[in-house]
């Protein structure tokens, strides 16, 4: 019952999905102990960041039906907020907090403006405009190099407590050294869980339902008494704020930020793909999709290496399977996932359970 409320009455509605979610939750919760190594932990942390980022985008895309390419802009703002403030004010919690608050404020204003603009033009136009705005913002971030470190980005330090150099116990626990990096991971983990549950609650609130109505038929939603401007703008702002928080998580984990890291169009496309693979309009889809995609992306090259060695007898196949051509396979993954998961993994699992 408690769980049901925690999940805002949105039960997985498929035994397989429930199992999958539990497994993912446990895997992420104990990642440092189950998957040792620096790389594995980085992947797990990236998963956490992406779960939040993708879920926040789903609020906009899946629930409100707004296609925006400017989502990474807010992600970037969050990351730059932490990065700039920590590199200017030094490694203390005040700086982190200030960066967070300032970037949330900037995102609020910008997303508000964009949200209002979204009503003036048609949907595809809006999508293309956000694409242009996002690329302009990326250019701007590169140009303001005194502030943002330009294309090289900013490397900075964070408070001791969550830095790798901090060790709160000499003794490794279950073979894992208890240091600041571990603490930082759990900070991210808690943040991700709280933010995702919050998003889940929002989409299942009366507000969330109105968003769906607007997505389905904006004209009629207005006619039955919902002020579309207000809802759309609120949704745009909320999703931007969550994306900003995801950006802050990223910066805290990496202790680095630059335009390619948080603003690139590639990330935007990854986010879109994850929403679609996972299942649009289901926050769970964001979680499942993010895990699958980030893990696949991170280990694709390793996988290909194995593949191309196996195929070394056939030179042309080996050339195609070469780890250097991992993007080729990523592209294939894009195409296949649109082919085979038209309603996303969550949609598919739920449809199967409903039968």
């Amino acid at each position, binding site marked *: 019952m408690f769980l049901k409320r925690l999940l805002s009455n949105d039960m997985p509605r498929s035994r397989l999905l429930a199992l999958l979610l539990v497994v993912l939750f446990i895997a992420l919760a104990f990642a440092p102990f189950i998957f040792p190594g620096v790389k594995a932990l980085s992947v797990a942390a990236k998963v956490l960041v992406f779960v939040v980022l993708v879920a926040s985008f789903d609020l906009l895309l899946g629930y409100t039906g707004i296609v925006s390419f400017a989502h990474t802009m807010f992600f970037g703002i969050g990351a730059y907020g932490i990065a700039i403030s920590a590199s200017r004010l030094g490694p203390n919690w005040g700086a982190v907090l200030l960066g967070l608050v300032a970037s949330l404020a900037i995102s609020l204003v910008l997303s508000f403006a964009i949200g209002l603009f979204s009503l003036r033009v048609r949907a595809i136009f809006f999508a293309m405009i956000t694409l242009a705005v996002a690329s302009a913002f990326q250019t701007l971030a590169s140009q303001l190099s005194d502030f943002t470190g330009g294309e090289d980005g900013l490397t900075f330090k964070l408070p001791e407590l969550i830095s790798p150099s901090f060790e709160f116990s000499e003794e490794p626990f279950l073979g894992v050294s208890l240091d600041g990096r571990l603490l930082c991971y759990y900070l991210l983990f808690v943040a991700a869980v709280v933010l995702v549950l919050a998003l889940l*609650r929002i989409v299942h609130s009366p*507000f969330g339902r*109105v968003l769906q109505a607007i997505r389905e*038929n904006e004209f009629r939603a*207005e006619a*039955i008494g919902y002020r579309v401007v207000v809802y759309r703008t609120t949704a745009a702002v909320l999703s931007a704020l969550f994306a900003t928080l995801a950006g802050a998580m990223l910066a805290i984990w990496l202790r680095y930020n630059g335009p390619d890291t948080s603003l690139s169009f590639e990330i935007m496309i990854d986010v879109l793909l994850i929403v679609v693979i996972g299942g649009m309009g289901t926050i769970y889809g964001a979680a499942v999709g993010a895990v699958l995609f980030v893990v696949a992306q991170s280990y694709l090259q390793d996988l290909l290496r194995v593949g191309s060695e196996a195929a070394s007898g056939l030179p042309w196949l080996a050339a195609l399977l070469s780890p250097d051509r991992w993007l080729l396979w990523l592209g294939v993954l894009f195409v296949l996932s649109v082919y085979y998961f038209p309603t996303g993994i969550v949609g598919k699992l739920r449809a199967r359970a409903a039968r």
Partner: protein
Amino acid sequence: MLETLDLTIRFGGHVAVNGVSCAFAPGTLTAIVGPNGAGKTTYFNLISGQLKASAGTVSLDGQLLSGLSPSARTHAGLGRAFQLTNLFPNLTVLENVRLAVQATREGAHRRGLNLWSIWSDHKGLTERADQILSDVALKSREHATVASLPHGDQRKLEVALLMALEPKVFMFDEPTAGMNAAEAPVILDLIRKLKQDKTKTILLVEHKMDVVRELADRIIVLHNGTLVADGEPAEVIASPVVQEAYLGIAKEAA
């Protein structure tokens, strides 16, 4: 009392509604008839705010509605159903109605601006929606998605959404068009029941003259955007303009 004063709209050179002044009192059902393209739907659009008038005003119980958004007019007490079906296609029938119930009611869900409560917990909404679906004989399909409904059932749902708004003014735009003769009575009964209430203002655009004759307290006739006749049903139907331009029988009779 719903009033329009000199209501006019032009599309380029075409005057679709031309200086229509009319008042509609609670407790009456006014039928609006006129040839295709006379401006009936456009007149509705001007009243409910889907179109902005080029000139003239709309007011309800003394409150000026001109300039308000459609949603604000809905909150002021106007409600309408559409001529061409206009629903939330991928939501279920029940969700469609529940959204409409929520839209105008005050309560914990505060018209949908509540971000933090759980929608399915609002039992009151569901109960009311269920009741409306029973009224329009759609209860058995409440979990079907709208897109899979046959045309006739979509028309019924269209009416159900209007009912759910519980407005002061009901505007029906050909509510039974495309509905089977056996099904139409369900809707007509609902309209009759509204009439009995005596406090509701009802506007009905309808081409089926038998329906109009039976239900209307008053008929107004639009022709080329202009109000050309207004009065008792029998009297209006008998008038030459209706006979000729609308029913197309005057000439033959002559």
